[in-house]
Every structure is written in structure tokens, then in C-alpha cells.
């Protein structure tokens, strides 16, 4: 519920009504195009050069016991609609440029940070993931972990407030990112990789069973290779790192010293 409310207000959709189990939202044109799956309608309006009328939709998080009417739907955590909204949020926030909003009548010196969310996936005969929220100060090169929780209560906006001025970075964002990546790589190297060892052991065992089954039988060579590849895929330990989102954050000089 709070996800829906935050999501739609973050997308500038007007929330018309809400209670504990439902929320009624007037979509923006952009949101309608992204979610309501009616390309023909929008194509038609575009051709006529007319303004379309975005839909108003009511989302229920709990079954009402009554059949749904038009422009009503159920949504739950993990449902395809939910994932669609989440993917949209992720895509829209891939890269941001945000300025801290200080209430100040004095000129404020703003310093640039590159702030990135890495998703680290440990994959073998199973999978776990964690998020690495790190930022690098693009002047000093100082790195902070768990950055989101440090700044989450600070107000930010896309525009720079008056009287504020920004310092140029010494480190370019691109090389800042490279440094963060290198750092993360080193940390991952230092980790305990017991899970990978276990997976490797299992993989070897399965491979030897497979080998005994085919017993060097040449005509089954192709099948043997298929099975072997499947075992490799199933157990091969690997760590994938990708970036969920990130951006340039400008924080006041005072903020830097308070961390």
C-alpha cells in the first residue's frame, strides 16, 4: 500500500482516494502510456494531434469479494503489475542529478558525489543477492558505504537552489565509478567463498557420476556434452555485479564533514 502511494506520488499521479485496502489514482499521460497497454488509443490521439485522456484506476491490495469493474484491478507484492511498476521506477531512476536543498540565506558551497547502488548476485546451485550502496566524494576520493541510510532524510531536488554554487570535481564521475568498482571487486575477493567451494564439490561429484554413466561411450558423446553443460550451468559459482541506479549528488560542504 505504501509502495503504491509513494510510487504514484513520485510519478506525479494524483491520488484521488485511498483507504487501507485500495487506492484510486488519476494517471498522468506518461504513466498511462507506460502501464495501461493501449498503444492504439495513444497512436490515434497522436495522429490527430489531440490531447488524450489518461485513465483513472483503482488498485486493490485485498480481494473485495465483489467482481472488479472497469478500471479496477488487484495488485500484490510480486505480481506482474507490481514488477512492471518497479521496473519502471528502476528505469526512470537509473541516473539522477540531485541537489541538496539547504535553507540558507548565505551562499552555500556544494560538493559533488557519485552515488551508486550495486546489486551483487552470488550464483551457484542457488542464488542470493545483496545491495551495495556506495558513494565517492569526487573531490577527496573518500568513499562511504551504506550511503543511502546516511542521506535518506535529506531533502533533494533536481534544481539547484538560489545562492548555492557547485564545485567542480577533481575526479570525473567515470573514473569515480571505476574506483568504486575496483573497491567492490577487492572486497568481494576478500569474502569467504565457502558457498562456492560447496557448489564446486557438488559439481565435481555430479560430473563424475555422469562420466561413469556414459563410460566413454562415443555414440552418446553429444548427449554426454548436453548433460555436462547442464551440470556446469547448475553449479558453476559466479558473482554478478550490476548497477541498479545511481547519480550525481551535490551535498553541502558541511554535510561532508558531518559523516
Amino acid at each position, binding site marked *: 500500500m505504501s509502495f503504491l502511494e509513494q510510487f504514484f*506520488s513520485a510519478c506525479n499521479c494524483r491520488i484521488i482516494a485511498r483507504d487501507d485496502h485500495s487506492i484510486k489514482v488519476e494517471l498522468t499521460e506518461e504513466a498511462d502510456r507506460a502501464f495501461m497497454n493501449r498503444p492504439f488509443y495513444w497512436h490515434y490521439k497522436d495522429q490527430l494531434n489531440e490531447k488524450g485522456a489518461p485513465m483513472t484506476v483503482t488498485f486493490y491490495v485485498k480481494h473485495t469479494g465483489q467482481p472488479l469493474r472497469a478500471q479496477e484491478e488487484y495488485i500484490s507484492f510480486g505480481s506482474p503489475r507490481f514488477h512492471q511498476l518497479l521496473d519502471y521506477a528502476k528505469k526512470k531512476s*537509473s*541516473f539522477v542529478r540531485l541537489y541538496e536543498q539547504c535553507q540558507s540565506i548565505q551562499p552555500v558551497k556544494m560538493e559533488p558525489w557519485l552515488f551508486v547502488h550495486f546489486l551483487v548476485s552470488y550464483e551457484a546451485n542457488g542464488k*542470493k*543477492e545483496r545491495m551495495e550502496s556506495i558513494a565517492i566524494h569526487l573531490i577527496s576520493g573518500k568513499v562511504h558505504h551504506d550511503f543511502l541510510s546516511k542521506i535518506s532524510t535529506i531533502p533533494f531536488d*533536481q534544481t539547484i537552489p538560489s545562492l548555492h554554487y557547485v564545485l567542480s570535481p577533481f575526479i570525473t564521475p567515470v573514473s569515480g565509478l571505476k574506483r568504486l568498482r575496483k573497491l567492490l571487486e577487492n572486497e568481494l575477493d576478500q569474502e569467504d567463498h565457502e558457498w562456492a567451494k560447496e557448489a564446486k564439490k*557438488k559439481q565435481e561429484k555430479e560430473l563424475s*557420476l555422469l562420466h561413469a554413466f556414459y563410460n566413454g561411450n562415443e555414440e552418446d558423446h553429444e548427449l554426454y556434452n548436453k548433460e555436462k553443460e547442464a551440470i556446469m550451468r547448475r553449479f558453476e559459482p559466479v558473482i554478478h555485479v550490476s548497477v*541498479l541506479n545511481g547519480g550525481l549528488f551535490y551535498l553541502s560542504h558541511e554535510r561532508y564533514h558531518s559523516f
Partner: protein
Amino acid sequence: MKPQITFDHSWEQQLPDWLRSSHTVSSWPLFKLAIETKLRIIPDEFHGLLTPSLLTSIDFLPHQTAAARTVMEEMNGTAILADEVGLGKTIEAGLILKEYMLRGLVSRALILTPASLVNQWAKELREKCQIYALVQKKKPDWTWNGVQIASIDSAKQAKNAEAMEGMIFDMVIIDEAHRLKNPATLNYQFVRRLNKTYCLLLTATPVQNNVDELFHLVSLLKPGHFGSSDSFNSRFKNGKRSIHDQDSFKALLQKVMIRNRRDETDQSPVKRFVETIRITQTKEEKAFYEALIQLKDAVPNAMTLLTLQREACSSKYAALSTIQKLPGQEREEITRLAEAITANSKAEETLSIIKNHPEKTIIFTQYRATQRYLESYFREHGLMAVSFQGNFKKGKKDWMVELFKGPANVLIATEAGSEGLNLQFCRRLINFDLPWNPMKLEQRIGRIHRFGQEQDVHIYHLAYEQTVEDRMLTLLHEKIHLFQSAIGKLDDILDQNWIEEHLHDAFHHSKSIREWEIKVHNLAAALE
């Protein structure tokens, strides 16, 4: 050992473009929301399940979540799910598939089922697990990068098998996998050649005839788990049906197979009431039946006599084709007696049960002739009944079930084709006649007494007094618990065939009903 680390560079590659453009649209709340929400759904441990907390619309039963965890944590996504009929194997498989999808380990999946179950799978996955699968029909598109369902018979056709040759499926699920017990069949070879990372085989009857079937099924899933064919034979096989070194065999089997049994998992308050109704034959029915017993010398062997008597216990129509094979004189005599029968007392009893309990009722018979007779009999009495047969096309089957859900109160089914039929909305079942194999009886009952049934179920066995049926009922079906408890345990999964073969042998090779009774008695005694 250090795992390989791979970086996805796509964000890095776009970064310069983003930096050049002076304007970005995204807001701080959306940035935070994307991360905070993602954090709530990522798998932060290798073990445990994410699905139950995300799919709140369905309550998974403990044995289902336990099975899913075992498959994921111990079996590495390759397993035989061999729960007894009606415990929700489909949901179990759906739960496992969903879990792998949520963890991002599976996106491309292929589900192969008998043609009649394709739509049902799609519906269950959609409604229970919120998995929206593509049903592959006449013009399949195997490049689809999501979950797809196809009938195994169409998928294995040469043009489809060729198209799939170079493709990898993250997960392959095969329903009714006991059809894959023979490595010489096209089914088996097709599945064997599929490139599959994870694989689930679903069957309630992993072994039907002999131990080799289990070897082949396991070797399809995990070649080498039971060793090579030769080493399996010398290490475990002891004749066709039994096993040397049972302990290590079971230990190995348990590593790839999960079998939940109804009596271990049934926590639902749904009770099963079984009522046996012994019916007195009318004078005409009795004369007809007695005349058959006198035929002893006219029929080629005792087996036909037994068959004939059982047919006669269902309806005179069921016996007609066998009667046609009799020598001339006897044939005329019997036909005359058959014509004298004007009322079928079983049909009357059935009608009165339905009249007393006006609700959805399913009737099972072994004979098509009886099925047709009942349909017209009910119609005469103003009851709408629909028939269900194994050879109906998929669409017709679906339609019959829809009719039964809707206007028709009675469904008359023959054995064949009832597999996979889910009739949880019905709670009354009449066995118009009885199969010789008690397992078949359990399969019939499994249509309504299954996962999803919310009310107590009522079962009626109909049998004519002092007939072969009466004796079968006494012997077989009143000992059904004995057979059931012997069958179905993972431990005794091999003995299951032994029992079934015995029953089959007793039925098909006994020279008299007496001999048959003795054989079954001996079997029962051995089990006790």
C-alpha cells in the same frame, strides 16, 4: 577457490551520455523507492522461500513448501515429484518455478503435459502462482523467452524437436512423467535431448511394472545417479521386481524423489464417507445372471465367464458384445433372458441417491454401454447428465466439465481419461460398478477427494448381492486400506508393482472365481 566475478557494464556505458545531458527527470523519492522496494524482494539467503510471503493470495500447505525447499536446497532443482494423487503436485511445481523465477534463476521454462491438461496448467499457474504462461498451439513459437506450456505429443514432433535442438530451457517440467519410463520411446528420447538446466518430473506412479522404469526415469533426470545400466543391474536388481541392498537404494532414491502421502499430509478436516449398498436383483436380473453361471462349459475359459458376470453386474448392455461371441443356442437363450429385463435396479438406486441428494454427482462405470444407457435413463427421468470419455478431444473434455460445473448435475465417466480431472466442486461419487484393481478405485475417488476440496466427500459402492461383484467388494475393497497402506510409501514403492502384478495375475489367470478369491486372500494375508 574463488568464483569468477562478472560486471555488467551497461550503466557505465550510458554514464557519459547522462552526464552530458543537462536535465534528468527522475526525482529523489523515485530513486529511493526503487531501491527500498527492491531490497524487500531480493533473496538475501541461499535457502528459504521468497514466494509464500509474496503470493499472499494462496496458502501453501506445509508439505508443499517443504517439498519446494528440499527441491531447491538439496536437489538443486532436479527432482521427481511423486506425491500421491490429489495432493497438489501442480501447485508444488508452480511454487518451485515461481521461486526460481523470483530469484532470477529461471526465465525461460517449458512445461510439457498431456494435451488434455494444457489449459488446466495455464489456469492453475495463472490463478495460484501468478505465472502467465504462453500456451503453444498449432503454430508454436519456441523462441518465447518466458514460461510456455505445450502438449508433449505435439512438442516431440520432428519439426518442433528440431527447432528446440539448439535452445536452452532454464527449467523443464513434465507432467504425468510415468509416460517416460521406456528409453526406446520417442517421448523419452525427446526429453533426453532437451537442453535443460533444471528439471522436474511429476508423477503419482513412478513405477508401474518393474524396477527398470525407475532406473530410466532417474537416469533421465540425473544420468549416473543410479550408476550405469550395467552397474545398476548388478548392484541393485534382483529379478524383475525386487531390489538388493534396499537401504542404499532408498537412500539414493530419496535424493532425487519426493513422495508425500495423503495420510501424512492430510490435515484438512475433509472426511470421506464410504457407503456400500448391496442391491437385490429383480427376478429377471437374477435369472439372467444365474444363466450366465450355467454357461461354464460353453465359454472358452473361466476368464470370459468372470468378465461376463462382471459385465452383467453393470448392465445387460455391457454384456451384449461378449454374449454375441457365445455359440448359437446359448446366445439365443441368454439374449431372451436379457430382453426380459425391464428395469436396472442399480440405475434405480442411483437415481434415488441423486434425488435424495440433489447436488453435483459423478458416476463411474467401466463400460461405455452402461454409460450410454445411464445417460438416456437419466434423461427419461428429467435429469441432465453429461458423459465423459478418455477419447474425447481436449476441447470437448473441457466443455463437458464446464457443463457439469454449470447446468448438468450428473457426470458419467469411464475410467479412461479421468486422470488429471479436477472436480473439487463435486463431493458425491457413485461407483456404479467396481474395478478389479483397488488402485483404480482410489484414482476415481481422487477426482473429488483432492487438494482444494472443502467439504466432506461421500462415496457409494453399488454391488448386487451374492454376485461376483459382492465377493470382489468384500475381498478387495473392504481391504482397500490394507492395500493402500502397503502402496504409496516411498519405502515400498517397489512393492507396489508386486502387489499390482499379483492382482492382475489373480484376475486374468484364475480358472474360477474361487481360485481368484484364494489368490487375493493369500495376497492380503501376506500384506498383513
